[in-house]
């Protein structure tokens, strides 16, 4: 194939392509249905009505209202939790969370108001407790036979009635 043939082929190819392009460009319009614009606008208006934002509902409405008391109760319980645990501290023999100033009791006596400050601390000192339990142990052991286990009283043949003065359990707890 010569260069001349190549050029001719390219030219032919280009001509064909241009011919198709021109033919397509010359394609004639057909008339759309006369009521097309009207139908389009009807659909647009229907769509626009459909998509108009609805008025916003109040924040608390319908079924949500029922949840308000429940939610309020939950909030109250959560708020009360610290106080509840603070109260439970008493069971653990922990110091009350009341400040010493508040503990100073204000009393009314004979027309004058006097503030009494406790002379002693509300807390019992450890050494006092030790002394108390030591004395208690000594009193208990004085009533018991030496080296005799407590269970021996309970298992003894001597009849006794629960709560009577000779009830060993009564003497054990000290009242």
């Amino acid at each position: 194939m010569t260069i001349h043939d190549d050029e001719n082929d390219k030219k032919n190819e280009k001509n064909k392509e241009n011919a198709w392009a021109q033919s397509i460009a010359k394609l004639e319009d057909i008339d759309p249905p006369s009521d097309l614009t009207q139908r389009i606008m009807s659909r647009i208006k229907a769509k626009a009505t459909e998509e108009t934002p609805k008025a916003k509902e109040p924040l608390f409405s319908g079924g949500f209202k029922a949840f308000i008391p429940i939610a309020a109760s939950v909030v109250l319980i959560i708020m009360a939790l610290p106080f509840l645990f603070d109260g439970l501290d008493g069971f653990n023999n922990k110091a009350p969370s009341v400040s010493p100033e508040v503990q100073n009791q204000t009393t009314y006596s004979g027309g004058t108001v006097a503030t009494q400050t406790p002379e002693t601390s509300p807390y019992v000192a450890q050494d006092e407790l030790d002394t108390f339990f030591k004395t208690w142990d000594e009193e208990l052991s004085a009533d018991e036979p030496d080296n005799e286990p407590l269970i021996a009283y309970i298992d003894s043949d001597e009849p006794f009635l629960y709560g009577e003065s000779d009830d060993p359990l009564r003497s054990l707890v000290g009242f």
Partner: protein
Amino acid sequence: MTTPLKDKNKEIDWIINTLKGDHKAFQYLVEQYSRLVYNHIYRMSNSPDLADELTQEVFVKIYQKLNTFDQTKPFKPWLLRIASNTTLSAFRKQNKIVSLDALKESGQWKESDPSPDTSDLIEAQLSNEALLKMMNALDIRYRTVLLLRYKEELSYDEISETMNTPINTIRTWLKRGKDALQKEFTKQNKGS
């Protein structure tokens, strides 16, 4: 015949007013472009009924998406993009789009053979209906790029954006589209 609006400012005004809720402004846009959209879809589908139905769908989409239109760019390519994609989607739903690879594998697709210069013959013989019929035999993607390029005179960039396809692929499709037309033309002339 409807031609694209020459007064760009007027077109932009209609778009802005439509966005403000003015239905009358949108009606001007519909009157201006419904013929263009209808004919583009008709040429792509070769069906007046489908063109009628899809033209309405296209304008509903335009109305809904008008706020996304970049007003610094021309309106016509954006409009044709929605029209083309709506038609392609309709074809996909009807399973009318077959992959080119599948066509090649099944032997239904062959590159056209070199043939003598037929340009004079084309111009002399092809009527509107005959050309549309031939184009209807092409793959929808080739048909679409041929129409967008030569009928609607969009640039390669605009077609690439419209079809969401790289420019080089668009060039290839255009070439193949014209080759396919040539092949179809040859086949019909041999048959007659």
